C-alpha cells in the first residue's frame, strides 16, 4: 500500500523534521497539536498523517532534540506532550539556516536564463 505521491508528500519526507521542530518552537504540544500546528503554519499545504508524524516525533526524541512528558489534554485526558530541548533549539536554528541557503540557491538557479 503506497501513499499517493503528491509533490507535497515527497517534499514533506525530506523536511518533516524541520517542520516539527518549528511547530514546537513556541510551546509544547501533543501529537495532534503538532499536526494541527503544522497545518496552520504552512497555510494548509501540509497535512501530516499520524503514520508519518509519530515516527518523526519518536525519531527526534531519540536523537535528543525533543523531550516528552505526560500531561493533561484539553479534554482532561492523559496525553503525551513534546517540547524542544536546548539541543533541539540549536538544531532548529541550524536547519533553518541550511534551508534558507538552499532555497536561495535553488531560487536563483531557477531565475537564471
Amino acid at each position, binding site marked *: 500500500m503506497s501513499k499517493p505521491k503528491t509533490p507535497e508528500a515527497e517534499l514533506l519526507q525530506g523536511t518533516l523534521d524541520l517542520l516539527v521542530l518549528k511547530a514546537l518552537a513556541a510551546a509544547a504540544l501533543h501529537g495532534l497539536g503538532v499536526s494541527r500546528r503544522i497545518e496552520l503554519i504552512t497555510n494548509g499545504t501540509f497535512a501530516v498523517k499520524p503514520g508519518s508524524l509519530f515516527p518523526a516525533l519518536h525519531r527526534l526524541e531519540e*536523537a535528543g532534540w525533543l523531550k516528552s512528558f505526560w500531561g493533561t489534554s484539553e479534554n482532561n485526558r492523559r496525553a503525551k506532550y513534546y517540547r524542544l530541548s536546548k539541543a533541539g533549539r540549536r538544531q532548529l536554528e541550524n536547519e533553518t539556516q541550511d534551508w534558507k541557503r538552499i532555497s536561495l540557491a535553488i531560487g536563483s538557479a531557477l531565475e537564471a536564463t
Partner: protein
Amino acid sequence: MHLYSRIFSFGQNLFHRREVERELSDEIACHLELLTASNLREGLTESEARRAALLELGGIEQIKEQVREVRIGHQLETLRQDLHYAGRFLLKHRFFSASTVGTLALGFGISTAMFCLVKSVWLRPLNYPDPDRLLQISAEPPMAGLHEADISLPRFEQIRSRKDLFVEVAALTSEQLTLIRAGKAEQLNTARVSDGFFQMLGAQALRGRLFQSTEQRVDGPNVAILSYSYWQNRFARDPNIIGQRIIVGGESSTIVGVLPPAFAVPFGDFNVYLPRVFTVGFLAPQQIDRGAGFLKVLARPQPGIAVHQIRTALAEMDGRYRNRAPENMDAHSNCRAFPLRETVVRNIRPALAAVTLAVICVMVLASINVANMLLGQLARREKEIAVRHALGAGRRRIVRQFISENFLLVNVALIFGIGFAWIFLAMVHQFGSGFLPGSELRLDTAGVCFALVLALVDIVFFVSVSAFNAPRDHIGETLRRSAAVSSDHPTLTPFRRALIITQVTLSLLLAIAAALLVASWYRVHNVDLGFEPVGIFVADVSPVSDRTESNTALLQRLIERLQTKPEVASAAAVYGLPLSHDDTFLQYAPADRPMPIIGHRAVTWYRVVSPQYFNVMRIPLRSGRAFTDADKLRNQPVVILSETTARLLFGNTNPIGRKVVCGGTIQTTHEIVGVVGDVRSFDLIQPVREEMYFPMAQCEEPSMTLIIRATAGTKLGAIKKRIRASLQELAATQAVTTPQPMSRIIARSFARGRFVAVALALFAGLSLLVVMSGIYSVMDYAVTQRTREIGIRLALGARRRDIIRPIVASGMKLVGTGLIVGLLVALGCMRFLSDLLYQINATDPLAFGFAISLLAAVAFLANYLPARRAMRVAPLAALQYE
C-alpha cells in the same frame, strides 16, 4: 548530548521494551480520543465521530510498526524476534528438530574429525624449515616389496662432497639397542645421526646442546641426546639430566642435550640419539666399507636447483661410483631422490583418500537429508506463510525468518558436531595409532574453523533451497487450497526426487566400498602365516657389553633350562622375527653354476635360528632335516631354504646336499640340509619372499629374540617370571626386554587394514541410516498428503493391497534409478580402491550384490512402512482429516 541520548534510547528500547510499547499504545489511544473529541465538537454522533477518527488515524498496527522501524536498535530487535520464533518453531516440532540436528551434527563431527586427521598426517610431520625443498635420497630396492633401500657409507660421502648440488646433507641410521638403568634393561629405538642432522631440520636443544663436529669423529667421546618424550617418561623431566651417564648398547654415554617436544624425525620415533653414524653394531667395518646399505639420507639442494637436475646428477654419480669401486656391494644399485613429503605419506595416502571420500559422501548425504526435511516442512507451512504475507510481512522478512531458523538449526548442530568430532578423534586414536604418523590427534582451532565453514556452507545451501522452493502463489489461492485438492498437487517436486536419487547413489557407493574392504580385511585376517602364532611369547635378549660368554652360548643354556619348566612347552631363539620388520638380507648364488659378480647376485632374506625353531613355530619340514647340535661352528656350514627359494633355485630337483655361496664382503659356502614351508615374514599382503635359515651355532648375532611356546593356559605374567628366574639361575648378565605375545606383534600388521575397513563399514552403516530416514520422511509426507484420498478409496471398498502397491512402486522407482546410477559409477570408480584390497577384485560381484540387496531392502522398508501406517487410519477418520 546527541550521542548520549541515542545510547540511552537504545538501552530503553532493548531492555524496557514493554514499557516503551505500552507508552506507544497509550499515546495512540490518546490521539484517537482527541480526534474523536474534536469530531464530537463538530457535531457528529458518538459512533460516527469515532469512526471518522479511526479513518483519519489510519491503521493502528501499521502506525505502531512504522514507529518501531525508526527506533534505534530495531534491527537487533527483529533479529531477536526471528531467533525467538525460530526457537519456538524448533521446540514445537521436536521430532523434526531432533532428526535434522542429529543428522547434521553427525556429519559435522565426522567431517571435522577427518579434517584434523588429514591435517595432522599431511602437515605436522614436516615442521622443518622450508620442508618442501627437503629430499630423501635412497637406493633402488634389491627386491620387490620395499619402497626404497638404504644408502651405503661410501655413497653418502660421495653425495655429501657435492657442495655444488647440496647445501646440506645428513644421514640417520637406526638400531635397537639395550639401555641399562638401575639394573633394568630396556630395548630402545636408537638413532645414530651424522654431523649437522639436527641443524638441517631446524631443531634446537631444549636443554643442553646438540652434537658438535668433534663428537662425530671416529675417536670422539660417547655422548647422547634424548628425545623429549623419553626424558618425560623415563626421567620424569629431571632438570639435572645434562651430564648424567647412561649405558646404551654396552657403552657408557654422557647425556648432553634434550630435544624439544614438537620435534619429530621423519623416519620414526626415537628415544635416544647417538653420534657417529658409521659405527653400527649390526655391520662389520668391512661390510660398511664395501657398500652395505644402512643409512637414510636427507639432502637440501642449493637454491635454484630443481629435483630433476638432482636426479640427473645422481645418475652421473652412479656411473662414477661404479667405475671407482666396482667390487662394492651397491656398485650396481642406482640412487634416487624424492621430496621428503612424498615418502612420508606414501603408505598412508590410499587409505586416507578412501576414508576422506567416504566422509564427504556422508556429509553430503546428511545435508541432502536435512534439505529434504526442510522442504517437507516448508510445504506444510504454506498456509502460515500466506497469512504472514497478508499481515504485512514482506518477502524479505519471510526469507529472513528462514535464515534465522536455519541459522539456529545449523548452529545447534554445530555445537553437537564439535562434541562428536572430539569423540571420533578419540576413537581414531584408539584404532589407528599403530600406523598413523603424527600421533597427536587433537581438535584444534583449525578444526573448529573448518567446522564453522562447513556450517556456513550448509546454511547457505539450506536457505537457497528454501528460498527457491518457497511457495509463491497468490495468497488467496493458498488459503483456499484444502486437503481435498492436494492429490492433484504434485507431492514431490522434481528437485526433491533428484535429491532422493542422489542419496541412494551415494549410499550405494559407500556400501559397495565398505563391503569390498570388509571382505578384503577378512581375507587378510585369515591368511595363512606359515607358522602358528597363537601361544607364542617373544622377548629380546642382548648382551650388556663385551662379556666373556657369547650370546649364543647363553641362549642355548637358557633354552635348555626353560624347556624343563612346566610353563614352557618348547623354546627357541631367532634373529629376525617374522613380521617384526627387523629385516636383513644378503646376496647369494648357487655354487654349482657360474656365479655373477658381487652386486649382481640375487638377494634373499635370512634368519638365524636355534635348532628347535621350526618346531616351536610349527613350520613344516618339507624335506631333509632341521638343524641339530651337530651343526657346530667348526663343522660344515649349513643352510635351510624355504620352499619358494628352493623352487626358484633348483626347480623340482632335490636341493639337499647342494651348495650355495652366501654373503657379499665375506663369502661362505653353505650346504643345503633341509627345505621348510614358506612363512609370511614381511607383510600380510605382499607375496611370499625368498628366505634362508642359518644355525645359531654357526652365526653369532648381537641380539636375538627368545621364542617360547607356552603350555596351554599359561599367562603372560607366568612367562615373565619364569624368564627372569631362569636368567638369575644362570647368573646371566644379558638384558631381556619385557615378553609379549606374538599376536600383539602381528596385530600391528593388521592395523591399517582394520582401521580402513572399520571406518568404511561405520560410514556405510551411517549412510544407510541417513538414507532410510530421508526416504521415510519424504514418503511419509507424501502419503499424509493423500490420507483423505486413501480414506475415500478405502470407504469405497478398495483393497489395501491395491492402494499400497502404487505408492510403494512410485517410491521404489526413484530408489531403482538411484541404484542403477550408483552401480554404473561404482563399476567405474571402485578400481581406485585396489591398493587397499587384498585378494579381491574391485568389481567383486558378491560384494556388489550384497550391497545392492541391502540398500534395496532398506529402501523398500522405508517406502513400505509409511504406506502401511496410512492404511491403519480408519476411513472415517481419514475423511475428517483436514
